């Protein structure tokens, strides 16, 4: 089975974010970047499926040159090769992003495409589904289990409030993977060494013939306004704890 995994590089989770001067995006200069966490679970699922059924795992990412670090990490974890659509993607909407990824994916003719259910930065939660429509493939979202059958797959989809549902569909198909579906592996030293020799095919939007004009414009980003007047408790840890215990007793009245 040839499995393609679409991964995204995002600002690391603990980043202190500052809005840039134009108010359009964040200041990237001092940030560290990492793989989008749900995509890490998608990659792990692909690696486990390959270990069980054979085939190959191809990592696909669209992003600027810095994304090559995240691609290398995917190769170090066990992806066989990678495709990098080397492209500044800031300001792209879901449709443009999915067009790029779908165009690149078509060149690989995968049996299965996996990606995370959403990104930790933009959080649109749509890329996999839009790719599926563009490629005329069946899809299922928020997947907690993947089982390969003969020419088909059976997946466990998470519903709300603790409910689940199994769905069967023909291959090729696209799945968006929920965090926690599996246990992530670390790259081994051997893996890191091997990654250096693995193939990374580079493409651009122009080469793929993709129109990058967005139809949904992000005009401005800004820190959210607080909806509540938060009483901040200050002092040493002990003083903070003592104040909070007092509040819980005399204001909230639960002690």
């Amino acid at each position, binding site marked *: 089975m040839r499995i393609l995994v679409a991964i995204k590089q995002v600002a690391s989770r603990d980043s202190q974010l500052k809005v840039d001067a134009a108010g359009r995006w964040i200041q990237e200069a001092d940030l560290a970047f990492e793989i989008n966490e749900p995509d890490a679970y998608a990659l792990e699922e692909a690696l486990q499926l390959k270990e069980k059924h054979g085939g190959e795992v191809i990592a696909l990412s669209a992003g600027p040159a810095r994304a090559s670090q995240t691609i290398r990490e995917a190769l170090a974890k066990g992806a066989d090769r990678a495709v990098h659509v080397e492209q500044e993607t800031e300001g792209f909407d879901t449709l443009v992003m999915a067009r790029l990824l779908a165009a690149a994916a078509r060149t690989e003719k995968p049996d299965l495409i996996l990606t995370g259910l959403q990104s930790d930065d933009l959080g649109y939660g749509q890329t996999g589904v839009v790719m599926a429509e563009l490629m005329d493939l069946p899809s299922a979202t928020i997947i907690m289990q993947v089982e390969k059958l003969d020419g088909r797959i059976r997946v466990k989809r998470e519903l709300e409030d603790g409910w689940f549902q199994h769905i069967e569909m023909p291959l090729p198909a696209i799945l968006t993977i929920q965090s926690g579906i599996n246990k992530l592996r670390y790259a081994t030293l051997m893996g890191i060494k091997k990654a250096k020799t693995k193939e990374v095919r580079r493409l651009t939007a122009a080469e793929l013939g993709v129109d990058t004009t967005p139809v949904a414009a992000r*005009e401005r980003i800004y820190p959210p306004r607080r909806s*509540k007047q938060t009483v*901040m408790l200050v002092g040493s840890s002990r003083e*903070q704890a003592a104040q909070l215990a007092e509040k819980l*007793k005399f204001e909230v009245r639960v002690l």
Partner: protein
Amino acid sequence: MSVLVVMEQSGGAWHRMSLETLAAGQELAGALGRPVAAAVAGGDVGALASGLAGKKLDAVHAVEHELLANYTADGYTAALADLVRRVAPSLVLFPHTYQVRDFAPRLATRLGGVLISDVVRVRVDGAVPVFVRQLFQGKLNADFRATGPAPHFISIQAGAYRAENVVAGTAVVEVFHPALDPASIRGVPAEPFRESARAVDLTAAEIIVSVGRGIKEKENIPLVEDLAKALGAELAASRPICDNGWLPMERQVGSSGQTVSPKVYIAVGISGAIQHLVGMKGAKTIVAINKDANAPIFEVADYGIVGDLFEVVPALAEEVRKLRRGA
């Protein structure tokens, strides 16, 4: 420039967010001075559609087909694409549910548009709607405008609008039978199920101590367990903690876990991503303990402590025990 609200039902009952989205649609249509209609799809939605006849709407579209009796992404996409092409609204609103996330991006793509998802607020700026949504797990907000040709697709976050603000009136129900080809429906869904009976009912708890990524390691969980014990509270967690198996899934609060509204919710080392907030923002009092002063959890907190949870939490357990003994 009309507004169409696509509501979600299962087994003849509304999804709780459907009426919130209807309220959003009515408010937005009012601000734009445009008509608003509602749609509901399923095998037999006559009773639900009739219920909407008592709301202030220009039309109610009952989208019925035997192939819609069980939800499939392909079936819903085809049926609603057919309806949207016929009604030709300029804005299509959905509740931001798991089901909507499964098919609405596909529907928008099929009709040449983009879904602006998980919108928390809409304002009208010179007769043009501006959609506010969160970025970076709630750390930043962003304003979006739909720039391409209509229709534009929007999904509305849980709790962003209030169901009780739906305006009553009258509406005409129109039944719409979409053209559906059984061969175009590729997914075969089985019956929904629950993994096991839920042993922990967090919804009944008066006090909840909830733990997030800030706890760093499984070995540190007893720290918050002890605080919960001191407070007589239930222990809960954000999703990553349950994903890691540090606490059982049934203790998870958030969009994929339980929705709680206790007297007090103490969030320990939880940054406050929206998926978590939707599960607990109904709490009467929210306390946040986090090392990052910019964590979005402080936006909903009544009391906040910026500090080291490894110091604050044991000290708090001790102070609580002291006050309890004194009482």
